[in-house]
């Protein structure tokens, strides 16, 4: 369990990134922070591993106030996956994955073997083990990033828009992979995104944020979809509902599909005998 208690963060330049943020993140489930750019998601996430220290308020992991914990030791027991994968360019895939175990004194052979296993877990071909990050595609790099985050078998996994920089097909593949991994491993995942689809897909608990880390609504995806707390939430998820509400209109005798906002989504092909067979 991670508990944010009255957390505020003012950066030295005066920016109030987070203003009085309180929430409890239950163990072994996925909590997603979703909000537009600059709403303080990254700042909140980085407070958990003390990459950012709050100006006021406290954060507890289980019963420990993390401000009393040594940052380096704390970070070594929390997995962290970031948007640009943050891989070390001068180390091979397998060495990147094994980085933290090696820091904590695990033997080279053991760390390497464990890293290879993790590559299986995240769906990476072992043949890529000795490649360098620059020789991988963006999607592969993100998988390495996830494997590295899992390498210390952390209870907590922080993920900051980990799939933000890959194309939609690869992204959805990675999302499915994460759902599968989470089913097996049941980590306490804190996931940051500005994509509401992704939030609803991955989150057991979804936290919709406004500027300044102010909570617009917290709940399960179903609760939020069914009862948007206010207009802000409605607009934020509205696009999603609109896109899902497809309907058919007839234009010049042809049937086209429009979404909830009346925008053209595509044409409807009815399976007529001629075209249906040949296609």
């Amino acid at each position, binding site marked *: 369990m991670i508990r944010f208690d009255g957390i505020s963060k003012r950066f030295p330049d005066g920016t109030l990134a987070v203003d009085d943020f309180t929430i409890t993140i239950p163990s072994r489930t996925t909590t997603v922070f979703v909000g537009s750019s600059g709403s303080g998601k990254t700042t909140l996430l*980085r407070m958990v*591993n003390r*990459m950012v220290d709050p100006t006021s308020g406290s954060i507890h992991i289980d019963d420990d106030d993390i401000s009393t914990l040594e940052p*380096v*030791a*704390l*970070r*070594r*027991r929390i997995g*962290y996956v*970031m948007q*640009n994968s*943050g*891989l*070390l*360019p*001068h*180390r*091979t895939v397998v060495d990147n994955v094994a*980085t*933290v175990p090696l*820091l904590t004194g695990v033997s080279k052979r053991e760390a390497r073997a464990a890293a290879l296993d993790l590559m299986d877990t995240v769906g990476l071909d072992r043949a890529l083990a000795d*490649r*360098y*990050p*620059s*020789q*991988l*595609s*963006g999607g*592969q790099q993100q998988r390495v990033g996830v494997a*590295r985050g899992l390498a210390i078998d952390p209870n907590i996994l922080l993920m900051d828009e980990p799939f933000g920089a*890959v*194309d*939609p*097909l*690869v992204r959805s593949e990675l999302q499915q992979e994460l759902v599968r991994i989470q089913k097996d491993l049941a980590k306490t995942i804190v996931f940051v995104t500005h994509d509401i689809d992704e939030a609803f897909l991955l989150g057991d608990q979804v936290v919709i944020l406004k500027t300044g880390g102010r909570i617009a609504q917290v709940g399960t995806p179903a609760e939020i979809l069914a009862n948007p707390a206010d207009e802000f939430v409605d607009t934020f998820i509205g696009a999603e509902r609109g896109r899902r509400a*497809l309907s058919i209109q007839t234009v010049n005798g042809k049937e086209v*599909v429009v979404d909830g906002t009346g925008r053209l*989504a*595509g*044409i*409807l*092909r009815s399976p007529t005998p001629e075209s249906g067979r040949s296609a």
Partner: protein
Amino acid sequence: MNLFGDAFRWILEPSHWTGPNGIPNRILEHLAYTGLTVLIATLIAVALGLYIGHTGRFRGIAVSVTGAMRALPTLGLLVYLAVLFGLGIQFALIPTIIVLVVLAIPPLLAGAYSGVQSVDGRTVDAARSMGMTEWQILWKVEVPLALPLILGGIRSAVLQVVATATVAAYISLGGLGRYIIDALPVRDYTTVLVGALLVTILALVLDGILILCQRLTVPAGVRAIRSSPGQRSTTKSASTVSTAA
């Protein structure tokens, strides 16, 4: 033309390859001054440069101080220090090395701090958030990635020191400068040219060796050519609709 012919003949003359004023001994002396200087300067400047690069502090000061150091006239400083120390010929090495170290520090410092600063901030941030200590970030991430630039600094320092170490002879030490300093007053230009040629050849050879080192130490992952084609342009096409419909 003739002068060069004479110089080469001088160099090839076997009797010039033995004894304290022989070519091998002068080269060794020259290399010893260079080596000692670069060693001392590296210890000072690279340590300082890594500190500045890692912390981002004192950068402005470092830039202006090294700028001023570059502007110091080597020979003037040498004479000044020699007089200041006034220790006599047996201690001439100290002012010589100080002068050469002053010369070597700017490129070394610049190579080290610009090398560390050139490392992608996101890589350093990732290393830190994984739980590396600052020390580990420096040695396991920043130094390996900065190595090409650090070695670049060492390279230009070595070149400058090799060329300038001839001044050692000015205050009665050895090295290849001996040929030049001794021959100039008696207008023996062949020997002056020999000194200059040998310094040039030595510099070229050392530079070649250092280029090789530089090549070998570029982290393999940085050298690796980006081979992935990248499939970023995939758009949400009609396939999304047809599955939904």
